[in-house]
């Protein structure tokens, strides 16, 4: 499990300063464009011309490559093994290995799917590397996301690290009572989860009541819209850019359907 639930890398580039909603629109636009156009190399072009420059401009290149590879490499191997060897539709057979067959169509299918996913995931990673989760939520709330949903999302991000800290404390407490963590086979290890997970879950769930009382006493859930403590800057230019990106993506699909692209 990762230590914290965020990828955010601090920085002061223009990509960091963009309104998160604009970056979200970018994610949506490239995803639409990547999936909407039937061409093997088109997603690769999007990746090389839009996403890699964005990562370089934001100064997060190293971590970007590391994260993209970390997610993508195992997936790529699995996808090529799966569709390369067992592609179900008829096609040109390159190599036959008993019940398995390497088909050109299978490799093309694996390649296209892999590249499309690469575009979608990398766009997300650019967004997450350059946007603080808190800023993302504030911006989404300013864009009209209901406060209850924003609360659930940001509270979850904070609760998972707190869970880890609490799990550590419970483990130490049980060890102090003589719980042996070191030895045993798989079954013993599984049974040992009970004294660790039990207090963790039960404690977390009994906290719910106190938290909801505290929140209601602070007018959570009142129909009046709360004002924001941090105002995320937005501009007319960015607002136009969002629509322009989505329109461009749709235009790419339209051009492709007409046979131009």
């Amino acid at each position, binding site marked *: 499990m990762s230590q914290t639930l965020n990828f955010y890398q601090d920085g002061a580039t223009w990509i960091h300063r963009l309104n998160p909603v604009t970056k979200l629109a970018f994610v949506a636009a490239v995803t639409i464009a990547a999936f909407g156009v*039937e061409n093997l190399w088109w997603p690769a072009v999007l990746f090389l011309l839009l996403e890699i420059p964005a990562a370089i401009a934001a100064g997060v290149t190293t971590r970007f490559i590391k994260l993209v590879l970390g997610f993508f490499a195992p997936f790529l191997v699995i996808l090529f093994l799966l569709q390369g060897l067992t592609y179900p539709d008829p096609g040109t057979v390159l190599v036959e290995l008993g019940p398995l067959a390497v088909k050109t169509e299978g490799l093309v299918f694996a390649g296209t799917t892999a590249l*499309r996913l690469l575009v979608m995931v990398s766009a997300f990673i650019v967004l997450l590397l350059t946007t603080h989760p808190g800023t993302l939520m504030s911006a989404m709330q300013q864009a009209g996301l209901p406060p209850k949903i924003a609360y*659930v*999302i940001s509270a*979850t991000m904070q609760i*998972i690290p707190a*869970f880890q800290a609490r799990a550590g404390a419970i483990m130490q407490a049980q060890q102090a009572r003589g719980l042996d963590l070191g030895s045993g086979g798989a079954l013993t290890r599984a049974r040992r989860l009970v004294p660790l997970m039990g207090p963790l879950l039960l404690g977390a769930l009994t906290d*719910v009541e106190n938290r909801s009382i505290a929140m209601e006493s602070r007018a959570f859930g009142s129909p009046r819209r709360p004002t924001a403590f941090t105002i995320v800057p937005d501009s007319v230019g960015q607002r136009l850019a969002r629509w322009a990106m989505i329109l461009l993506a749709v235009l790419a699909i339209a051009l492709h359907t007409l046979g131009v692209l």
Partner: protein
Amino acid sequence: MPTTRRYPPWLLITAGSAIIITTYLFLVVWQPESLVGGAGVGPAALIALAGYLIGSGLIIAGAMARMPTSTVTLLPIAIAINIVAGQINNMVGLPLYLDSIGTVLVGLLAGPAAGAATGALSNVIWGISISPASLPYSTTQVVIGLLAGVFARWGWTRRVPTAVAAGVATGVVAAFVSGPISAFIFGGANASAGRSAIVAVFQTLGLDTLGASIAQGLTVDPLDKSIAFLVAVIILRALPSRFSQRFPFAREHSVFAPRSASVLARARDVDVLAGADRASVSASIAATAPAATSAAANGQDGDGSGAAPSASGTDTTQDEEGGRL
């Protein structure tokens, strides 16, 4: 932004469900010809992504609009349980998911709409934090949360065997819902090598990618969801009954059966299982334990904080329950 809501929440939920169902039917009917052109799944993937995400978004908005604060504060914990367990599962490499325990938990406690919202938000948050690949699967979780609530409403979670059966049924539906996502967006492959190997086996046996993905789901999901139901029921039974009694849904539909064997409890069981017998049972108890009749007739368990005070019969029940816990 104006604070007034132009649409009632149920309209959003209905619209969201309609979009998801339309997307699904469209994909399943249209699929056979779209794969013929080699790599021609792009539009199908786009439609799957857009339709499922918009549908889930509408359901989240509709379900969250009227949600009481006690349920809202439960969601982050349920979602954290989902994400942590799912992430551990992916790291260990089990061919399961284990990412819907929290969803089932909320479905049982707070009803179908809350369960659906938990499921959808769970995968959205997992997607925007550590694992972007789980974002498209939020619709599967919507269905799981919804069904958990429905089965709890029908009383399937009162006994362990029926709870497991509810898990199996939920798993079958989940497999059919997630099939198009796996096939069109991910090309049948999976973050877990174990699950992908199952798809490969089914493709070798002659199924197409969609069929193989659904078949893979059918081998894994029923087991996975019955584990989720079982764990959720065990967790909720381990908690003091005061906790589940605070949720109106769990209280009104007595989602968790009382575990005592006293005369009162048996009367309550009959009351819970067969509504037709209600009058006669109440009448028969009335002679022995007059105060408890009102609790039984209300359909309440009588062992929680929601029970009427001042009634001596109810107090006795509380003591019995407390001793057993």
